[in-house]
């Protein structure tokens, strides 16, 4: 059965991805759920929860709220919180509950804006898609709504898209900035990581955008088209030991599994090997090589490895559980959106 997971547990969902981008934006963010989804985000998918304060709340929906569609109550509670917490805007993140009862998120957005006087973005995430879908959705709303063209380009200013703990395994932007500075510019800003909504408003100051995960690509293209900011694609935040182990490979058949741009970046470091990149998450066709694989289910994943005759797999060791028959070498490459492990946990 295609959607049955017999070995693996679920990967980071879209609502987690949405919250990850919003986390440091200075918004009041409300997860439109009964409590469990917010628990999964704050207790698992958001490693910054206990180190960086963020106004991220659960709507605390109850059965009658859902059955009766009490949108007015939700907006009332949102306006109450805006009196208690300083916020630049509000965001409402969808979950399976509003999806089942077909909540009109656009209507809630308008109601919230009218009531609080703050801009609101309401997101149709529903917990059934993966985190990159949610990240992309938030990037789109934030950049389309908030970027101001009043700012002129600043020399050396570089904006990074895709810089979330889910993509990079990093809690702060230090490492990303350190890795990108030498190649791209001295003044690196990672949108959403150690940076808030002001940096998005001033995005036109960037000389260049660097996209480190597929979730940021659509909005980089938008910024290029609308404001003429060029973009580049890169990978980063690969552990030194992983890089060394990968570079030491020679004449091997290698499978790399991660988000597409990290996997691609690692492939570029290998020489003399036959490398296939695969991802459970979005793969952009224009960056895919012929044999690259978008994994859609556990059975397909197992089949890929069983029939692939790989000597080496470079992937999060979380996937080992599904691959009992694989006898080759495994190089552990953590991916937070898969296993919840940060780079420092390796």
């Amino acid at each position, binding site marked *: *059965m295609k959607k049955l997971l017999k070995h693996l547990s679920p990967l980071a969902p*879209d609502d987690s991805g949405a919250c990850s981008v919003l986390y440091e934006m200075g918004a009041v963010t409300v997860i439109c*759920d009964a409590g469990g989804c917010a628990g*999964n985000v704050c207790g698992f998918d958001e490693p910054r929860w206990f180190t960086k304060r963020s106004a991220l709340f659960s709507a605390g929906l109850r059965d009658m709220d859902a059955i009766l569609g009490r949108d007015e109550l939700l907006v009332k*509670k949102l306006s109450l919180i805006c009196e208690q*917490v300083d916020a630049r805007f509000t965001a409402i993140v969808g979950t399976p509950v509003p999806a*089942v*009862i077909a909540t009109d998120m656009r209507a809630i957005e308008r109601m919230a804006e009218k009531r609080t006087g703050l801009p609101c973005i309401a997101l149709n995430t529903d917990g059934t898609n993966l985190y990159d879908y949610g990240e992309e959705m938030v990037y789109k709303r934030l950049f389309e709504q908030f970027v101001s063209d009043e700012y002129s380009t600043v020399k050396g200013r570089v904006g990074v898209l895709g810089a979330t703990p889910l993509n990079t395994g990093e809690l702060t932007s230090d490492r990303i900035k350190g890795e990108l500075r030498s190649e791209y510019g001295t003044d690196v800003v990672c949108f959403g990581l150690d940076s808030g909504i002001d940096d998005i408003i001033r995005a036109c100051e960037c000389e260049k955008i660097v996209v480190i995960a597929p979730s940021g690509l659509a909005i980089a293209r938008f910024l290029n088209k609308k404001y003429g900011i060029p973009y580049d694609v890169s990978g980063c935040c690969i552990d030194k030991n992983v890089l060394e182990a990968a570079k030491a490979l020679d004449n091997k058949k290698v499978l790399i599994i991660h988000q597409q741009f990290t996997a691609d970046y690692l492939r570029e470091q290998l020489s003399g090997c036959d490398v296939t990149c695969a991802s459970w998450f979005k793969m952009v066709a224009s960056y895919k090589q012929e044999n690259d694989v978008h994994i859609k289910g556990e059975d397909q994943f197992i089949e890929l490895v069983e029939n692939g005759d790989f000597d080496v797999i470079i992937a999060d060791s979380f996937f080992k559980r599904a691959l009992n028959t694989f006898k080759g070498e495994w190089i552990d490459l953590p991916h937070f959106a898969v296993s*919840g492990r940060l780079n420092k946990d390796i």
Partner: protein
Amino acid sequence: MTEAYYITASELAKRSYDDLPDELNSAKHMIYSSPATLDFNSPGAKGFGVKRAGLAIPGSVMLLIAPGCCGRNTALLNELGYSERFFYLMLDDTDIVTGRYISKIPQACAELLEELETEPSVVMLCVTCVDALLGTDMERVCRACEDLTGVKTAPAYMYALTREKRLPPMGLIRKSVYSLLEPQKRRSNECSIMGFFSALEDDCELYALLRSIGIKNIHELGRCKTFNDYQMISRSNFSLVLNSEARAAAQDMQSRLGIPFIELTRMFRISKIHNQYALLGQALGSQLDDTEYMNNAKNIVDSFRNKYPGEVFAIGESLNADCFELALALTEYGFRVAEIYGTVGERNFVFVKKLAELSPDTRIYSNLSPTMMNYEPLKDVTVAIGADAMYYHSDIAGTPFNEEEQPFGYRAVELLFNKLDKVLSESRGGAR
């Protein structure tokens, strides 16, 4: 920014339970994911949520039928060795709107059984808010699975939407895990202890007291190693219910299996523990001699008070106690309780009233209130009890007191004060 909301015990006691301030009523505001909130919304590797509790039956496996977001934190349970026992039927957006996946559940059960080397004792079907809203008839789904696979199947309702109903998810799951017991001849010298998914702490006096009146076998879900051990529970002559969330399960066992039950409460006031044992003895038709245990507990409290007379406590709710009852106990023992982070319910409002008489200025905070993100700790608190209190007071001595082994009776008092003594002596010695 608004300061963290609190109300003093005296202010709260002047109101009735039906007149709680909005900040203490979770239906009136958004929910802050404090450590305590996460404990019940997303228990992860600590404690028992519906998913882990559903696997309390030895040899069971679970099929979680849900969108990916509902099973995400299950990865934490892998660390506890549950990875071989969880399976997932992932729902997409069309599924959750149309309910078309329901007819596929029996086939999913059959496929997961093919994967297992040994047949499980039961397949627990865990469903979420989606099925709460769709109104899925899980009894019927379970029957369809049993018809196809021949393996027992039971529902586990992870309905977060119904948390404040008369039978909340943690009550329903207790009912489910005892639902596979079958009627058999009851033994007069056997009983069961219900309420927790893990066992009581080994040295709890309740075991000795029950044995002193001729009880030979004491069954507990948390001590069952095999499905056969589990089935022995229905030989019990009576059940002791130590957590009110197990009441519905005990009522079900009474009606289905004819096993009556007696409800006891975990308390930290020694006089009340003594009264409760006296009443239990009366109900069982024997006298329970708890003198030795009571005197020991009194000595431990006295000794602690002599050693640390001026301690000021902050008490959370992520712990093995009712925070309001514990605050009352500590106050009665002569200590000061400055802060409580708790959820006021109908049952513990009575403790608030008594606390107000002895300690009117005790501040009561709600862990769920969004204003708690602005909480600043009181400087005069010297000891924190509970994982959440320790989070708020990260720079003072504290004990989480939320181990899996469940404390009860005089032994709970002994364990608590021993832990407090340990952390305080370490802290005062400079090594926390």
